[in-house]
């Protein structure tokens, strides 16, 4: 089977920062806004090179979303930067009316998503953002898996005309996708070929899924791992094709099972090819303080959880 290795770990937010800096050099219409989290979002390079195209709004996220919507009128492509919690729930109505319903070309870039921002605890660990954002008509939702893919996604969304939610995180995670990859919005990437179970994973859980597939292989179980970086629009064809072969699926995400990737996959299967599914996701709960690894373990979001759910779903076939 195809195996993946890594030589370096890096935070996905740095991939965003690198992508934004590159856009600063290549696309004069790209502007950036931040609500007092420049360092956390790794926006420093863009700001240093393009001070006139950066808007520091202070701790005022609602205003930031409105200003971003206004900046599109005049042809700018605004990238807003703050934590995922403050990029979604805090400003939902501003995004809904001024950005989504108004069809504005705003890129909502959200760091520190999920449990793995760690010690700050549940006030900052949003596990509902994918659901909130995928429900907005016309909103594209992207959750890349590593540094390289986050950088590629940042570049790609500038070329897409319409609102986008780009979700990434704080912890260092393995870099296992190519540096020169071309990011195609809505196009799933098949990481490994398999016949017994399909594992549809998003974000840094793609790495956990690959680790799981390696362990499963040693036990004689052949897992097909699909990297779903785009949750909306969902690559239904890739999922259906794989499940037609394997007959069952595990979805894996750092998000509540309610409203997440797993439910989107369930709908596709129910409409086209009903098949057993297990969910690696948080179970309708808030998070808590801890290290990322401790939290992934406690809330069942690591490769061990994926192995367990894979065996369970195969048994249901």
């Amino acid at each position, binding site marked *: 089977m195809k195996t993946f290795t890594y030589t370096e770990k890096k935070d996905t937010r740095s991939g965003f920062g690198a992508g934004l800096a590159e856009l600063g050099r290549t696309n004069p219409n790209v502007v950036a806004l931040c609500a007092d989290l420049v360092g956390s979002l790794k926006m420093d390079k863009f700001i240093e090179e393009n001070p006139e195209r950066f808007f520091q709004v202070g701790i005022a996220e609602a205003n930031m979303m409105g200003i971003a*919507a206004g900046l599109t009128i005049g042809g700018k492509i605004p990238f807003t930067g703050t934590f995922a919690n403050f990029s979604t729930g805090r400003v939902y109505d501003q995004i809904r009316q001024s950005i989504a319903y108004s069809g504005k070309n705003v890129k909502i870039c959200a760091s520190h998503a999920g449990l793995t921002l760690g010690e700050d605890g549940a006030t900052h660990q949003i596990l509902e953002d994918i659901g909130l954002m995928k429900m907005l008509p016309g909103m594209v939702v992207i959750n890349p898996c590593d540094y390289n893919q986050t950088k590629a996604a940042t570049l790609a969304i500038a070329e897409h005309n319409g609102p986008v939610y780009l979700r990434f995180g704080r912890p260092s995670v393995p870099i296992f996708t190519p540096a020169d990859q071309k990011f195609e919005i809505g196009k799933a990437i098949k990481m490994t070929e398999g016949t017994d179970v399909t594992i549809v994973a998003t974000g840094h859980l793609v790495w956990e899924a690959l680790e799981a597939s390696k362990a499963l292989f040693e036990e004689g179980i052949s897992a097909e791992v699909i990297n779903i970086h785009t949750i909306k629009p969902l690559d239904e064809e890739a999922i259906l094709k794989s499940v037609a072969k394997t007959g069952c699926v595990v979805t894996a995400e750092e998000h509540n099972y309610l409203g997440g990737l797993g439910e989107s996959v369930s709908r596709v299967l129910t409409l086209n090819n009903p098949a057993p599914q297990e969910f690696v996701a948080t179970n309708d709960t808030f998070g808590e303080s801890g290290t990322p690894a401790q939290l992934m373990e406690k809330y069942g979001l690591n490769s061990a959880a994926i192995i367990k759910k894979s065996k369970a779903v195969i048994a249901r076939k």
Partner: protein
Amino acid sequence: MPSTQHLKDLTTQVRRDILRMVHKVNSGHPGGSLGCAEFFVALYNEIMDRNEGFDMDGIGEDLFFLSNGHISPIYYSVLARSGYFPVDELNTFRLINSRLQGHPTTHEGLPGIRIASGSLGQGMSVAIGAAQAKKLNNDSHLIYSLHGDGELQEGQNWEAIMYASAKKVDNLIATVDLNGKQIDGATDDVLAMGDVKAKFEAFDWVVVEIKEGNDIDAILKGMAEAKSKTGQGKPVCVLLETMMGNGVDFMMHTHAWHGKAPNDEQLASALEQNPETLGDY
């Protein structure tokens, strides 16, 4: 000052449009629409420098944003009578499959509208963003916006007001419709905001007061003064004192007509007070 009779005639006509639109569908917001009729007529016919046709980016022209989107009847009437879309389309206000939604939206592609509004308190931020885009584009034209006084109770406004002065957004003229009323009653009773002028000044805005906000000549004079204060490092606020329901005797001096349509008899009486000037749609 040249004669403004043609603007006054147009105002009478748009009052008729407003009344007929809300009457037909028995819904909508005539009170605030009537109160701002003179302002809209003056803005679109005399104050703003507008290009022919409609382009979303609005490069090289002044732009207007309506934050208190519920007064869509006046917005639609003046946009139609300014040539953005056929006046006959006012017939479709709030009907199924119409571009004239209950609250203004870009979603149906109605020319003249650049942002959805209706959920209150968001327009100031959008106007600021558009103003900053103008600066980036080296476009010296201005951004105008309108906000309800009750709407200032929404906290996002104060984020935006703080930002605009801190960032020297001096190509923005934000007008507040001071009619002193909101759905549940007088603003002073619902949630008193105290001295609005002092509040804007405390946030380092330039404030221009138009005490006779239903007088075309007073509006033109006040807005000219506001325009003269732009480009000096500070955002400009116009406090426009209006009468909700202006021009229809039974709709004035009350908040009752904020979001209520007249019945057949009331419409007849209201139209009688505003005889046709430029032709009904």
